[in-house]
C-alpha cells in the first residue's frame, strides 16, 4: 500500500485524506447527521447500525457539540463545537489495528519516528446504554483516537461486534500540523487565494454559543422541549407496526431515535446552564437511556436491524 507520508498543510486536507483512505478500505463515506449531537457515536450510522446481524462499514465527519466545553474561543484546545471523524465496521475485521495505523500514515504520521501506543480505555455511554472495550491511542503521549469494540448498544448484545474508531479531528490536526492554538490552525491551504484559519471560521461562533449555552438559553423552554422529545419518542414507538395508509410494516425506529438524540442534546444544554443537580443528573441520563433502549428494541425489528423482511 502506498500512502502519502508527506505532511498535510491544512485541517481540511487531513479530513480529505481520512475520507479517501477509508473510502479505499471499502467504507461508505457518509455525511454528518443533520442534528445536534454530543459525539459521532450518536449518528444512527453508528448507534443503530451497530445493532443486528447485517454487515456495515461507514466513515464520516460528525460535528459534535459539548456546551459545557465552551471557552468563548479563547482556550487553545477546548471548543463547544468540534469535529469528530468516525469509522464503524461490522463485523470488526481482524486487521482493524493495522487499518487504523494505515490511516495515521495517510495523514502524515511516520511510524518510524513516532511512538504509537494502545492504552487501555474502556468506553461507556450511560445515555446510550452502550459499552465496549478498547484503547485510547497515544501518539508521542497524546491521545489521538478512541478505538473500541462495541459489546452492547441500547442494552442489546452486539452480534457481530462492530469496531469503532473515533478521531478528535482538531486535536489530531493540531498535532500533525504543529499548531499550538486551535484558532490559528489553517482551515484551508495556507497558499490559497483566501487563506482561512480555524479562527476565521469558528472564533465568533464559539463566542456566541458560549454566551448562549452558559447564560442565555431559556431553561424553562429547554425543560419543556426535553419532556416533549421524550413523549414524542415514546408516542412514535407506541404506533402499530403496520401503517394503516400503505398497509406496509413500517417501524419508525429512526424518527423515534431523532427524538432521543434531541432529548440527549437538550440535557447537555441544561447541564451547561447549571440547572441540573448531581442527583437529578443521574435521573435525566436514565431517561435518555430508556429512550435509546426502546429505539434499539425497535430498530432490531426492522430490516436494516437484521430482521428478515
Amino acid at each position: 500500500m502506498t500512502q502519502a507520508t508527506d505532511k498535510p498543510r491544512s485541517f481540511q486536507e487531513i479530513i480529505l485524506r481520512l475520507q479517501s483512505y477509508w473510502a479505499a478500505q471499502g467504507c461508505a463515506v457518509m455525511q454528518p447527521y443533520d442534528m445536534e449531537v454530543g459525539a459521532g457515536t450518536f449518528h444512527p450510522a453508528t448507534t443503530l447500525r451497530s445493532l443486528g446481524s447485517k454487515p456495515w462499514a461507514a466513515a464520516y465527519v460528525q460535528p459534535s457539540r459539548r456546551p459545557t466545553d465552551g471557552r468563548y474561543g479563547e482556550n487553545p484546545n477546548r471548543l463547544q463545537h468540534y469535529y469528530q471523524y468516525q469509522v464503524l465496521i461490522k463485523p470488526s475485521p481482524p486487521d482493524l489495528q493495522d487499518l487504523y495505523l494505515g490511516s495515521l500514515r495517510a495523514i502524515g504520521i511516520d511510524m518510524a519516528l513516532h511512538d504509537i501506543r494502545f492504552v487501555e480505555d474502556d468506553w461507556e455511554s450511560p445515555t446510550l446504554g452502550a459499552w465496549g472495550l478498547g484503547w485510547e491511542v497515544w501518539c508521542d503521549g497524546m491521545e489521538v483516537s478512541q478505538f473500541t469494540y462495541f459489546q452492547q448498544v441500547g442494552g442489546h448484545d452486539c452480534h457481530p461486534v462492530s469496531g469503532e474508531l473515533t478521531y478528535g479531528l482538531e486535536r489530531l490536526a493540531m498535532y500533525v500540523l504543529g499548531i499550538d492554538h486551535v484558532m490559528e490552525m489553517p482551515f484551508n491551504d495556507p497558499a490559497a487565494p483566501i487563506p482561512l484559519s480555524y479562527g476565521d471560521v469558528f472564533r465568533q461562533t464559539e463566542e456566541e454559543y458560549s454566551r448562549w449555552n452558559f447564560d442565555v438559553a431559556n431553561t424553562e423552554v429547554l425543560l419543556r422541549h426535553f419532556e416533549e422529545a421524550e413523549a414524542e419518542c415514546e408516542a412514535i414507538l407506541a404506533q402499530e407496526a403496520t401503517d394503516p395508509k400503505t398497509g406496509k410494516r413500517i417501524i419508525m425506529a429512526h424518527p423515534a431515535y431523532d427524538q432521543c438524540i434531541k432529548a440527549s442534546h437538550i440535557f447537555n444544554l441544561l447541564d451547561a446552564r447549571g440547572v441540573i443537580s448531581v442527583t437529578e443528573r443521574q435521573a435525566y441520563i436514565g431517561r435518555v437511556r430508556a429512550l435509546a433502549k426502546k429505539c434499539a428494541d425497535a430498530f432490531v425489528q426492522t430490516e436494516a436491524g437484521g430482521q428478515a423482511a
Partner: protein
Amino acid sequence: MPDLLIELFSEEIPARMQAKAAEDLRARLTDALVEAGLTYAGAAAFSTPRRLTLTVQGLLATSPTTREERKGPRIDAPEKAIEGFLRGAGVAREDLEIRDEKKGQVYFATITRPGRPAAQIVAEELEKLIRNFPWPKSMRWGAGSLRWVRPLHSILCILTSDDGEAQVVEMEVDGIRAGNTTRGHRFMAPDAFSVTSFDDYATRLKRAHVVLDAAERAEAIWQDATNQAFAAGCEVVEDRGLLSEVAGLVEWPVVLMGRIDDDFLDLPPEVLQTSMKEHQKFFSVRNRKSGRIERFVTVANVETADHGATILAGNQKVLAARLSDAKFFWENDLRTVREEGLEGMAEGLRDVTFHNKLGSQADRVERIAALAREIAPLVGAKPDLAAEAARVAKADLQSEMVGEFPELQGLMGRYYAQAAGHDDGVPEACEEHYKPLGPGDAVPSAPVSVAVALADKIDTLTGFWAIDEKPTGSKDPYALRRAALGVIRLVLGNELRIDLTNGLLISGRRSMASMLCRAVEVGQHSIKFPLLESLGIAKGDSSIEELNKKSLEAADLLAKGFGSGVPPQSWEVERSNDLLAFLHDRLKVHLKDEGIRHDVIDACLAMEGNDDLTLLVHRARALGAFLSTDDGENLLQGFKRANNILTQAEDKDGVEYSFGADVKFAETDEEKALFAALDTAEPQIGRALKAEDFAGAMRAMAALRPAVDAFFEAVQVNVENAVLRRNRLNLLSRIRSICLQAADLTRVEG
C-alpha cells in the same frame, strides 16, 4: 522428556491485567496437566502488552497407564444387572474375573486406561483454559463467539523433544489454529517467524525487539532512567506502581528524559507529579541539589532514527499543554483566595448538592464546623480554630485545580489556606481532615486536624443514618464503613476519651435539621407531624404550608443540639444506638485483624461505657491477654462453674443469691480460704477498675484462681443443710459479681 512452549498472541492487553494473567496461565494449565497425569519439572510464565507466554520444562511425554478394579454383581444376578455393569465398566464379559466373596461368587472387572500422548492432553486442556480464562473483563470481536481480553490473533504451541525436535500441538480454538510462529515488535519487526524451543523463542524475540520478561523490562527502565537522571545531577522519584504499569505498556522500552519548562517550576511539586503521572505516565525527576522537580522521564516503545527526538518533543508539548492548564488553575485559585479568602472560594459550595435529602455541601460544612467546635476540647484543640478549619476545609473542592485533579483535594486546601493567611494547624487540617482514607492510611494526630476529621466522619454517618441510607451487604455507595473505620482509628490512634453517644445524638440532631430544611426547600417531606410533636411542636392543620412551617420550627430547635432544652427522644436514642452498634461491628472487624477474638470483644461490649472506644479496647486487650494465660483460662472455668451452679439454683429456687455470704458458716479450710481470697481481691479489683487499670484488675482476678479451684475440688455446694447451701451459693455469687465487674465473662466461649 519434552518441553512445552505456549504463546497466546493478542491485541494490547491492559497493563494492570498482564501479571495476573501470566500467573493464571501458568497455575491453571500446569494444574490441569498434572490432574491429567502429566507431571513436569518446572514452569514459568511471562507477559508483554501483546502476549502471554508459558514454558513448561520436563513434561512427561505420555501420561501413565492406569488400572482400576471395579466390583460387580454376583454371578447369579439378573442378566440386566450384569449387562449394565459391563456397559458402565466398558469391558467384555470374557474379561471379567470371578472371585469368591462371603456372599457368594462375584464378578470383578479391571479397567485399563492407556496413557495418552502429551500433545493430545495439552491440546484439550489449553482449549478449555482459553475458553474459560479468568480475565477481569473480556470481550467478543468480529463475528466470533470466543471471549478474550482483546482480540486473540494467534496461538503458538509446541512440544520440543530432548533432541531439539519441535512438534506443533494440533489444536484449534474458534478458527485459530495453533502453530509454531509468532511476531516481533509491532513496528520494528512485525514479520512472523517460527521457533523450535523456549530458548530459541526468547532469543529470536529479543532480536525482534521484544523483551519477554516484565521484570527485565522494569529493571531496564529503572536502570536507564536513574542513569540518565544521575548524569544530569538528578534523581528519579521512585514509584513502583508506575514502573510496573509502564513496563506493561512497552515491549521494547526506550527511556527518554526531558525538561519541564521553567514556567511551570513554581507549581507545587504534587501538582507536577500528579499531572505527569496520571495523564502521561511520566516519572518525576528531582534536582538533587534543589530538591525541585525539574525533569521527567517517559518510556517509549520504539527506537527511532532521530534517537527519540520527535517523540520527546511531542511528549514535551503535551506536557506543556497540561501544565499550562494546571498553572492557569493555580494562578486563578491563588487570586481567588488572596482576594476573597477561602470563605470566598467556598461560596460555591452552596450550589453543590451533597445529597438530595440532606442539602448542600455548605449546609454540611456548617454542621461539621459546629460539631468540630464541640469536639475540640476533647482532643486538645482550640474550639475557634477547629471551627475555622472546618469552615474552610472543603473550600478547595470549588477550586479549579481540584476540579481538574480530584485526587489533589485536601492537599490544595493546605496550599490555599496558607496563601490565604491561615495558620495554627488550620492548613494542615484542610489536608488531613479526609484521613484516614483506608486501613493503611496514616491517622492524623494534630489536634485541629483530629477535631475536623472526626466531625467530618461523624456528620457523614449521622446524615446517612437520618435519611436511612445504611450500607447493606456489599453495597456501601457512600463509603460509610470507611467513615466508621475512620472514626475508630482516629479515636484509638489518639487514645481519645470521648463518649460517642453524645456526639452521635448532637450530630444526629443537626442532620435532622438539615433534612427538614431540605424537605421544605424541595417540597418532599418524609417526616410527619408525630415526630415533630415529640419535640414539643404543636400539630397544626395538615396543609403543606403548615408542615413547612412546623418543619422549619423543628429544624431551628434541632440545630441547637441540646441547647434547646428538649431531651433526646426515643427515636433519637434508637437511631444513635443503631449507629453505635454499626461502629461496634466495624470495631470488631478492626480488632480481629489485631488478633482479638470476637467473643472477648462481646464480653467487653456488654459493659457500661462501651461508647468510649478507647476504654473498650483497653479492656478487650487486657481480657484477651488474661484469657491467654493458664490462670485466666482456669479462672474462666471457675467462673463458669460458679455461674452455672448459681443459675440452676436461682432458677429452681426462684430467688437471686447475691448477698450475705458469711465466713462464720464456712466449714472447710478451702471455704474459709476462698472468703479470705475474695476479701483481698475485691478491693484490689475495685481500685484497679476505678483507675481503668484493666491489666491490674485481671492480675487480681488471676490471684483468685488457686482458691476457686481448691474450693470446687473440696466443697460441695448443694448440700442438705439449707443454711450451708445458701451461704455457699451467696459465696459463689461473690465470685460472679467480682468477675462481672471486669467484663461479661458469660459471653466468652470455652
